[in-house]
């Protein structure tokens, strides 16, 4: 049968990945290696270039000297014949004007006529070709660069230069370059290590911060060195992102707190009404009334939910798509017309002054809702026979919508908190409302890059929405 014991099932143990694998997977090591490679290759190329240009120049100089010397000797031969040539060579050898000069004149039969070499070097078979061969000069072995020049009458003239000194120079240069190259490789590796540790330190700041945040420490931020480099930019961007996330989380926390505390009340009310009716209602009418009231309570809860969702929808910026250039003046005049009737009903004087045009980039629905909330509030808190001012104007590139009433207003200490969700000032505790109206107005103003300011109207509340105007150009 099948024999799948633990022994046969065990293949190569899936141990930790190979060390080399780990090293290559580190971006720091990769960058460092690339750096070292680029540095090493450029250093090597520099050395090679130095090598060839120096030696090449020397070689060229020697060749030039030999060439000129040959030409001069050939002129002697042409003008004075063989004796003149021999004299010239001898004079060069004895005068030692150039101690490295090498000359040898061979007769057609192969005898040495004159010169300073002991014998014809082996291997020199072709004429007019450069040879670099070992030679013997008065018993001393050396190396020479040589060229053979054929002369009329089967004579052969060998002109050259002793290059032993040059070879020594080459060795010195080679040793120097090898040292320099080793030093460069060492420097390259050192640089690579530096880059790697620098990279790792910068990345570690970011990864330490993000993993701390992943563990729940949302207050942590990536340290910014202040140098203003790319890593600083990255750190700033990450910090900005974290700030935004923190704000959104605060919002969510606020909402969940609000739901936990503020919605408990109406839910409790609806529940007790229903339970009370179930236990105590004796007539069908009483039962019906309890159910109706509970339904109303539930509707109220739903409208609170909707307002909350609307606010978070606006704050999350998902309504940006609906923003278009519009003139607010007719929109606001419509609202004036809608609310004028309500004001008159309550014997409140609605004083409206709307300038035209009021071009803005706006979501019409949201602006309407924000202004409706302000007007609702103003009319709700106004006594009859008082005045509510509703005005809109364009001042210095900002469209200002003002709703000012003569009601109780909001106390100085509460004004900053009035736009928080579910905040209700003492004076407003006993009126209907969810405490979300101004929070929504605030969110709408901010979506439009504007502000909501709450001011004292002496007495009453003066709410000002400011939105930057829209310029077609």
């Amino acid at each position, binding site marked *: 049968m099948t024999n799948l014991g633990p022994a046969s099932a065990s293949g190569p143990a899936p141990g930790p990945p190979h060390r080399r694998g780990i090293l290559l997977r580190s971006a720091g090591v990769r960058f460092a290696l690339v750096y070292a490679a680029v540095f090493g290759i450029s250093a090597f190329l520099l050395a090679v270039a130095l090598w060839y240009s120096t030696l090449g120049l020397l070689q060229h100089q020697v060749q030039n000297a030999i060439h000129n010397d040959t030409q001069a000797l050939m002129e002697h031969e042409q003008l004075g014949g063989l004796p003149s040539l021999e004299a010239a060579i001898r004079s060069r050898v004895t005068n030692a004007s150039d101690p490295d000069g090498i000359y040898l004149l061979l007769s057609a039969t192969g005898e040495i006529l004159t010169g300073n070499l002991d014998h014809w070097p082996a291997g020199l078979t072709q004429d007019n070709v450069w040879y670099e061969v070992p030679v013997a000069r008065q018993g001393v072995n050396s190396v020479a660069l040589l060229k053979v020049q054929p002369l009329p009458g089967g004579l052969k003239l060998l002109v050259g230069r002793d290059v032993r000194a040059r070879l020594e120079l080459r060795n010195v240069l080679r040793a120097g370059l090898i040292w320099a190259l080793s030093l460069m490789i060492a420097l390259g590796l050192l640089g690579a290590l530096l880059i790697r540790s620098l990279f790792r330190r910068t990345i570690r700041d970011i990864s330490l911060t993000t993993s701390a945040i992943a563990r729940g420490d949302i207050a942590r931020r990536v340290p910014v060195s202040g140098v203003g480099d790319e890593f600083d930019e990255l750190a700033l961007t990450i910090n900005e992102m974290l700030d935004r996330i923190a704000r959104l989380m605060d919002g969510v926390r606020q909402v969940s707190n609000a739901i936990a505390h503020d919605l408990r009340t109406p839910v409790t009310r609806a529940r007790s009404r229903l339970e009370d009716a179930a236990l105590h209602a004796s007539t069908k009418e009483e039962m019906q009334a309890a159910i*109706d009231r509970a339904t109303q309570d*539930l*509707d109220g809860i*739903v*409208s609170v939910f*909707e307002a909350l*969702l609307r606010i978070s*929808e606006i704050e999350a910026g*998902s*309504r940006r*798509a*609906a923003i278009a250039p519009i003139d607010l003046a007719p929109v606001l005049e*419509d609202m004036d*017309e*809608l*609310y004028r*009737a*309500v004001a008159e*009903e309550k014997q409140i004087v609605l004083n409206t002054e709307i300038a035209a045009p009021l071009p803005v980039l706006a979501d019409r*629905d949201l602006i*309407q*809702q924000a202004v*409706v*909330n302000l007007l*609702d509030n103003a*009319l*709700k808190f106004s006594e009859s026979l008082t005045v509510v001012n509703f005005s809109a104007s364009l001042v210095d590139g900002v469209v200002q919508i003002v709703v000012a009433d003569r009601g109780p207003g909001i106390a100085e200490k509460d004004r900053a908190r009035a736009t928080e969700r579910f905040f209700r000032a003492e004076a407003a505790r006993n009126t*209907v*409302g969810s405490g979300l*109206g101004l929070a929504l107005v605030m969110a709408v103003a901010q979506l439009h890059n504007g502000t909501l300011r709450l001011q004292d109207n002496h007495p009453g509340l003066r709410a000002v929405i400011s939105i930057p105007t829209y310029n077609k150009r």
Partner: protein
Amino acid sequence: MRILVVEDDKDVAGFVLKGLREAGHTVEHADNGRDGLFLAASENFDAIILDRMLPGGIDGLRLLETLRGQDNTTPVLFLSALGQVDDRVKGLKAGGDDYLTKPFAFAELLARVEALTRRGKGDGPATRLQVGDLEMDLLSRSVRRGTQKIDLQPREFRLLEYLMRHAGQVVTRTMLLEGVWDYHFDPQTNVIDVHISRLRQKVDKPFETPLLHTVRNAGYMLRAEDI
């Protein structure tokens, strides 16, 4: 009227079906998208009430897009828990005629469904509307009741026009806010009631029989004879 309800929640569906039957309509029900599409495509309905999130692989949007792809123009009202503005826009773009967010009041649903079926039966642009002895001339923009001319502000005229176009039907406050003012949210104050009562002052007050009735827990209705 014959109405198809595509809704997977048993309680909601039962409540809606019962209410529609009580209002005198014939109702068919499908509890998933596949059956809903089959019924909607193979039979004739005056209106379809459609949930957006449905089991069975076909959701409400797909169902409607398929239906409209077959040139089926049955009026459709979305009834959905997806209440964000984008959701509403998506629903209307897919070919929906109206969008109602859960939770809802049955009166609102009924009024909207009945308004939809009326809208489907328009026989060309009317130039005159008449309810009882109330007459509206849409060309000269004048209103008279019996022999007496009634002066209306432009907005009052549009309010009355909306009510007359839906004469005999319940019209909710939200419908008026959307249809007459083009506002898509609920104000805290009773703005609509105030405007209706002003209209009443002009249209009903000086006359013997009232035409503009308040329907408790629902809205208003313009209707000629007292029932």
